[in-house]
């Protein structure tokens, strides 16, 4: 089991100093971590080793910020925090928010209210996740978000809540008696790549062990191959990961698998290129896609997706739903033979549409 993350310091906004979430978190914090109260108007702390507990005045729940021109999967994001404690070389947060502290929102009652209000309007199944702007479980031993989410979604079986992580921090989650609609998801990559480019995260073995424990508890898991990187021998490397996934969990326990290739905004290389010198990963043959992001050359991307679709089907069987993240309808059609229409991916993943829509039947 990997070591549990502890922030170097904690800064708490005066406004949420006495919020139940704050008091509970501070109670779980080791005594040697310095805590500071931030008064209104004082500068916000900087750096991801600092945990910043504050108030979110806006919306906790939003449609996933997809990319223009790509197939949407109907995902919603439920943002309980911002910034990730890990140091993945490719992470968009490095580009968009390099100095942001590890931010957690203490007004969870507001979040719950917004969630319940939205849930009233959702009669159909819907997918929501907390891992878009942070790692959902990396700090769960402090935040206990899993218990909060378990109780929040328990009355709504049509809402599939996904907690996404690169940690193996599932103790609190397992202890929370998670409902069946609380899905734990792991981002996965070949072990060598995790070691070189996903600093501070759990190893693949640790992640899969945690996934196995959650599946053994009768709950569903998901996996995200995102970003897939064309490292040397990538087919063998990723094949081994797929095999290990299905050695760790039964195919029936897998809610979905997503595949997305490495992509980044053009300005990422302009900004970070010099600092990434000697890491060929970022200087592969990337070309601008219609949404302006740089992606692998079309035929190479197509090869990746065809490979994953074939291997997941071969090893996990056709019952394992696989979808592409941030890809065009042309790519769905070309790589998976699936001429997607609006809402098709969403319906497929929430189990509302099977059979004729299965892309690789």
């Amino acid at each position, binding site marked *: 089991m990997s070591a549990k993350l502890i922030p170097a310091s904690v800064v708490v906004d005066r406004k949420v100093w006495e919020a139940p979430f704050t008091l509970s978190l501070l109670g779980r914090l080791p005594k040697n971590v310095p805590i500071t109260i931030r008064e209104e108007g004082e500068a916000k702390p900087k750096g991801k080793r600092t945990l910043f507990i504050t108030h979110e005045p806006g919306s906790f729940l939003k449609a996933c910020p997809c990319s223009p021109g790509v197939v949407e999967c109907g995902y919603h994001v439920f943002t309980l925090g911002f910034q990730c404690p890990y140091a993945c070389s490719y992470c968009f947060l490095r580009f968009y928010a390099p100095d942001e502290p590890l931010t957690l929102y203490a007004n969870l009652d507001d979040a719950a209210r917004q969630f319940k209000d939205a849930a009233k309007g959702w009669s159909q199944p819907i997918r929501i996740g907390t891992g878009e702007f942070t790692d959902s479980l990396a700090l769960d031993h402090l935040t206990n978000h899993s218990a909060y989410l378990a109780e929040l979604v328990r009355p709504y079986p049509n809402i599939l809540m996904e907690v996404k992580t690169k940690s193996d921090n599932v103790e609190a989650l397992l202890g929370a008696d998670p409902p069946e609609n609380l899905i734990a998801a792991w981002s996965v990559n070949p072990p060598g790549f995790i070691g070189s480019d996903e600093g501070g995260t759990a190893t693949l073995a640790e992640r899969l062990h945690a996934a196995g424990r959650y599946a053994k508890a009768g709950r569903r898991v998901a996996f995200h191959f995102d970003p897939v990187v064309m490292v040397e021998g990538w087919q063998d490397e990723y094949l081994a990961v797929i095999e290990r996934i299905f050695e760790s969990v039964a195919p029936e326990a897998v809610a979905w698998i997503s595949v997305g290739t490495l992509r980044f905004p053009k300005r990422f290389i*302009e900004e970070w290129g010099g600092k990434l010198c000697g890491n*060929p990963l970022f*200087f592969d043959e990337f070309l601008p896609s219609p949404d302006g992001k740089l992606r692998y*050359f079309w*035929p190479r991307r197509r090869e990746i997706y065809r490979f994953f679709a074939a291997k997941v089907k071969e090893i996990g069987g056709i019952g394992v739903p696989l979808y592409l993240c941030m890809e065009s309808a*042309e790519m769905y059609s070309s790589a998976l033979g699936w001429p997607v229409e609006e809402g098709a991916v969403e319906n497929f993943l929430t189990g509302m549409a099977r059979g004729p829509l299965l892309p690789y039947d």
Partner: protein
Amino acid sequence: MANAVGEIERVERGALAPGGGRYSFSLKSPGERDALNDSLKRQGQLTPLLVVEDDGALTVAAGSGRFAALTMLGAEYIWVRRFTGSRKSLWERLLDEQLSGGGLNPGEVALYLKKRLADTKETADELSLGLLERLGLPARHGALDDPLWIGGLEPPELFRYAFGELPIKGVRLLMKAKKEDALAILRATRGVRLGANKLNEVIKCALECAWRDGIGVQELLEREKLGRFGEDGETLRMALLKLRYPTVSEWEESFGVDTESLKLPGGVNISHTPGFEGGKLRITFAFPSLKYLDDNLKIVRDKIAGGDFASMEKYLG
């Protein structure tokens, strides 16, 4: 500051030392220099030079161009005014004089800052925000990064920048690179004829190839024998594109060969999307009459039916 400037006086030309290397930040184009020479020839010296005493020598601080021109014209006496104030106030005065003749180009801003800091021993952070505004820069010290970088360029590149020969986007890319990499690219592109977008492409490809291989740009250019293209910027650009995008270049080349071998009639063209994205091709027909179109459609249909288009399959889907 006005008190620091003496009355106008006439001194022998031989008593004056040139101070351009230390004080001049004016970057005049050849046309501007010719115009100055003509004016001095026709009207003589109308404005006194500003001089300072440096190590006992009367040195020209403002008017180096005029001093050079007057020397060339054989003037025996030159009108000057002596400056006796502090070094900082001298540089304020020099800026005033330059601004009174019009704005500064980016190269001049860069040189002013570089030479002022060297002469006064001020640090960039000590410069007032008001001074930055007078130089046409945003009033924050971060705005000094670009001009200080530009001020460190070698003269040919400094002139290329000052006279707008380097595209802004390209300069931005270069400024984020290591200085030796930036200078290697600038040296390799001296004299090349390329539009702004293509020059940006050269800069981007050279940097990214070097970063990919974990080496310096100079080493890359030498390894790939890309240092000596003279003015042939297009060949340099193509060579770098091939190096940066080998598979894409290969596809581009094979697409050209494959479409050529289709021997399509005049006015019929096949093209692909940028980067072959989307796996679709486009065929266009230009036609002066409906009969011409009908004939060409038939030719293309026959070629598809006869399997001539099999080579296009690779680019589809």
